[in-house]
């Protein structure tokens, strides 16, 4: 039994008085795709942002490949913040893709993808751009390398953003609703890139409303509601009855919407 890629134990996140995540326990196996689903405000994006260390959890612990992320908790409940270099090293194991792409508008696609290779990894320009180009090729955009984000469609922008994260060779890819800002015709190209990544064995955590994608690609689906993890298991279990009543309700709204569109 190998170490899980990500282990989350008793994770709590509070913003002021409101508890956004309550005692989350979840293990994400290496090389698998794990989808986080749930209604808006259920805490799924916050959980993903905790994994990227964009939010600092209030208590509990996250380990990535067995290494603590940000905080270390001793068994008697004492919590220590790890040194910045350590945090940086563990964060480097993950790549993050945002709902709003967050490409830098003043750089070309190639500039976006090669930037961190140049400034963080200190690669010479030519070498950084060669590696960036290989990533753009992988997402099918090498002929858009010299386009600025404003000259690309939403789907193309998101693919550049995926290439940008992949360029640093992360072990785990985190996706925060990667297709929610795209119109339906453009979601396919992004989901295809993600399918390819999954087929290559990349560990992926995906916050998504694309139930179809979750059902067909995910190895594990976790359902969050009001900051609690209500259910986690393989798709075959989650779509089989009987389910958790709240999950039933949630999935039914998807079916209702589909049905009303057909009517």
């Amino acid at each position: 039994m190998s170490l899980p890629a990500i282990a989350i134990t008793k994770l709590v996140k509070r913003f002021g008085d409101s508890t956004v995540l309550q005692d989350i326990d979840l293990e994400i196996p290496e090389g698998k795709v794990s989808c986080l689903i749930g209604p808006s405000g259920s805490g799924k994006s916050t959980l993903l942002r905790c994994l990227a260390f964009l939010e600092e959890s209030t208590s509990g612990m996250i380990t990535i490949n067995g290494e603590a992320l940000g905080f270390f908790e001793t068994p008697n409940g004492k919590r220590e913040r790890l040194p910045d270099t350590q945090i940086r090293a563990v964060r480097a194991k993950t790549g993050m893709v945002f709902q709003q792409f967050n490409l830098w508008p003043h750089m070309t696609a190639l500039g976006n993808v090669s930037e961190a290779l140049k400034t963080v990894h200190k690669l010479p320009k030519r070498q950084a751009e060669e590696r960036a180009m290989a990533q753009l090729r992988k997402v099918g955009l090498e002929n858009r390398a010299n386009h600025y984000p404003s000259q690309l469609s939403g789907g193309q922008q998101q693919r550049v953003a995926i290439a940008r994260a992949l360029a640093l060779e992360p072990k785990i890819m985190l996706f925060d609703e990667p297709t929610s800002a795209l119109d339906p015709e453009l979601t396919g190209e992004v989901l295809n890139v993600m399918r390819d990544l999954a087929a290559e064995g990349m560990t992926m955590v995906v916050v998504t409303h694309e139930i179809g994608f979750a059902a067909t690609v995910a190895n594990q689906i976790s359902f969050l509601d009001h900051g609690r993890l209500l259910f986690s298991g393989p798709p075959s279990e989650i779509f089989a009855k009987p389910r958790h009543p709240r999950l039933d309700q949630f999935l039914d709204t998807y079916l209702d919407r589909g049905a009303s569109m057909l009517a």
Partner: protein
Amino acid sequence: MIFNPAIILEKLPEIGSGLFVTLILWVVGIAGGVAAGFLVATTRRFGGRVINIGLGALVEVLRGTPFLIQVFLLYYGGPFVGLMLDPIPCGLIALTVYAAAYYSEIFRAGYAAVPPGHVEAAECLGLSRWQAIRRIQVPEMALIVLPPAVNLAVILLKESAVLSIITVPELTATVSAIGSQQYAFLEAIFVLAVIYWAIVEATGRLGRLAENRLSRLRIANA
């Protein structure tokens, strides 16, 4: 009585020297003001609550009092705290500090205008805070801060005329002195107006040129 600005223009070398002092004070004041203003805005953003409030209060005092009063306080009040300054250094310091207060507010707005997600993306990719400022935030805010920065530069040029009151031999002091000598005060003032206006106009054009250059590359997309 005839209106004859040519009387003033006979003293071209003196006007030139006054103009030179004004331009030096102005350019150095802007450079210092931009640098210090950027430092203040950056420190306020990342330096924590106490520093933010402290620097914020200082900026408010500098923006809330007339430049003339600040110049008087520094020039005549300075000696009481052991700060004896000649007119030119005194004027330069006053102008720079005044400029820094306003530029810091422009940069503060610039920082706020960059979508937080763009900085988070940089953070996730391992860029340090300074790398993110230099490579992401500053270039992204450049287009946004350029128009107000040029506008402030124009205001500073006109404010620099106030320094004539503490005997800085800049353009206004020089030309109005020529006017008094030649009994042609109105002509002197008229010549001054034309010179200031010409510099302002040139600055505005330069600003628009820079804006076009930048925006050709950077079509804002949030």
